[in-house]
């Protein structure tokens, strides 16, 4: 060793290598290059072509209108402002119910992991209700709430709350106990360990739960609005059925898919921003 090595002098010089990944790449389109984006575009075009051909063969535009008619309908809904209006109605319901689901679900999951008695009681209830699809509750919810705001919010909440509970629960069960020991040997107390070790450890899990919750919430809201709301995206699909406007109906249906995809992409971005150390935000990353 070099004699008289001072504290400031690196013992071994290291070359700085830029290992940083671009945080934004691949979030919105989910692929890492223009090449892949083109592939997606091509397969989309192919699907539309196939759809168009099948439509011609079927010969009944009321059953299967051509994709171009659907696109045209979508465009007219867009310029009329109706598309945006109904989308905002649904998104607002989603925001309220989803936030509520997070506020309830995460603490419940933590409590289940932390206290055996909570796991045995609340945990049992959660696991026995969870297999019942949110859709099954819609008829009774109509009886309870009638048609309006409460019903869709209730159904979304129901769909979204379980992934929050389960992933918050799993995060604490999975926690690396050695990290807590290390924190203790470094002089951290209980509160500091909870805030700087336990919570950050659970973030990727909770965010993964949040993604699953969002997907389920989005599916639930459409189902709920089909029957139990006076407006919104689900209602719009149903409305177009009643007035026998198949092209507009399909335009709404595909629009639901587009918005759902965009919401998921936003959440993926949030995962990568809030938890850059985790892999959960990448497309194809682990999903629990």
């Amino acid at each position, binding site marked *: 060793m070099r004699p008289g090595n001072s504290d400031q002098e690196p013992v071994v010089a290291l070359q700085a290598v830029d290992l940083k990944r671009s945080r934004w790449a691949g979030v919105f389109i989910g692929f890492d290059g223009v090449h892949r984006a083109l592939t997606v575009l091509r397969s989309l075009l192919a699907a539309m072509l196939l759809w168009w051909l099948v439509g011609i063969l079927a010969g009944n535009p009321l059953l299967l209108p051509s994709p171009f008619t659907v696109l045209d309908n979508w465009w007219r809904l867009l310029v009329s402002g109706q598309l945006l209006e109904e989308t905002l109605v649904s998104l607002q319901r989603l925001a309220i119910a989803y936030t509520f689901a997070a506020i309830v679900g995460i603490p419940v999951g933590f409590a289940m992991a932390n206290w055996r008695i909570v796991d045995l009681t609340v945990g049992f209830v959660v696991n026995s209700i969870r297999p019942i699809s949110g859709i099954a509750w819609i008829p009774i919810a109509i009886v309870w709430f009638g048609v309006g705001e409460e019903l869709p919010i209730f159904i979304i909440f129901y769909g979204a709350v379980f992934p929050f509970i389960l992933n918050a629960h799993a995060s604490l069960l999975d926690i690396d106990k050695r990290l807590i020991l290390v924190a203790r*040997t470094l002089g951290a107390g209980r509160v500091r360990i909870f805030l700087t070790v336990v919570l950050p450890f659970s973030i990727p899990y909770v965010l993964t739960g949040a993604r699953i919750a969002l997907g389920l919430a989005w599916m639930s809201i459409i189902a709920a609005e089909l029957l139990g709301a006076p407006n919104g995206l689900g209602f719009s699909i149903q409305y177009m059925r009643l007035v026998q406007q198949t092209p507009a109906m399909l335009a709404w249906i595909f629009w639901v898919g587009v918005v759902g995809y965009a919401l998921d992409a936003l959440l993926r971005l949030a995962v990568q921003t809030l938890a850059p150390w985790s892999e959960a935000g990448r497309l194809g990353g682990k999903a629990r």
Partner: protein
Amino acid sequence: MTTENTATEALLTIENIQKLYGEGGRAAELVALRDVSFTVPEGQFCAIVGPSGCGKSTLLNIIAGIDFPSSGLASLSGSRILGPDPRLGVMFQQYHLFPWMTVRGNIEFGPRSRGLPRAKVGDLSKRQIARVGLSGFEERYPHELSGGMQQRCALARMLANDPVVLLMDEPLAAVDAQTRSILQEELLEIWGESRPASERKTVLFVTHAIDEAVFLADRILVMGRRPGRIIADIPCTLKRPRREARRTRDFVELTESIWDLLHDQAADATRQ
């Protein structure tokens, strides 16, 4: 033995430590440690070697205050160790860096936990980062670092609390051979090999590699298993600095004599 005298000079005192596992429902099944006693004077680099499962980690954890003996006690500067203490720096085989903190965040964790003022914490981490050669990597996350760099970061994190005793549990077992020998030399430098004995840290270093123990330590405690206990206490007086010591006859002979001591124990371990 004049225990009176050594007891007053010793920084670490381990007295009659026993550790039993399986005390719960059934009768005690496993004696992990039996009657372990020794003292470590200030500034000594003391290695512990032994076959796997002989209780090395258990012993170290007890001294670190994160595990408790079934009987007996460990004390630091005459006061009993009852829990984790910033004066006792601990490092495990897996680096256990906090994945959500940058290199700087990891290194500042200890000083911040102890409530040091922000400016002081910044100074401290800067010094430690330079000391272990991680300058330029302050804002990296652990998963962006090589194994050797992660280990340096864990070392700096421990050193940032300026502990009196360094407790290390096979800290180099997970890195490749080349990085390992570099890190061994760095460790000796940080310990204070090139400084006078009075300026050195006190180190308790667990390893299962005998040559590593001989290369690093002033003294080697050899442990046996079933029950876990100390079977030999061997001084290791090879000339320092040890950089060239690996190829000397003394080095090889000492390594082999310890290997002979452990041979039966190790053979026993592989049969389990």
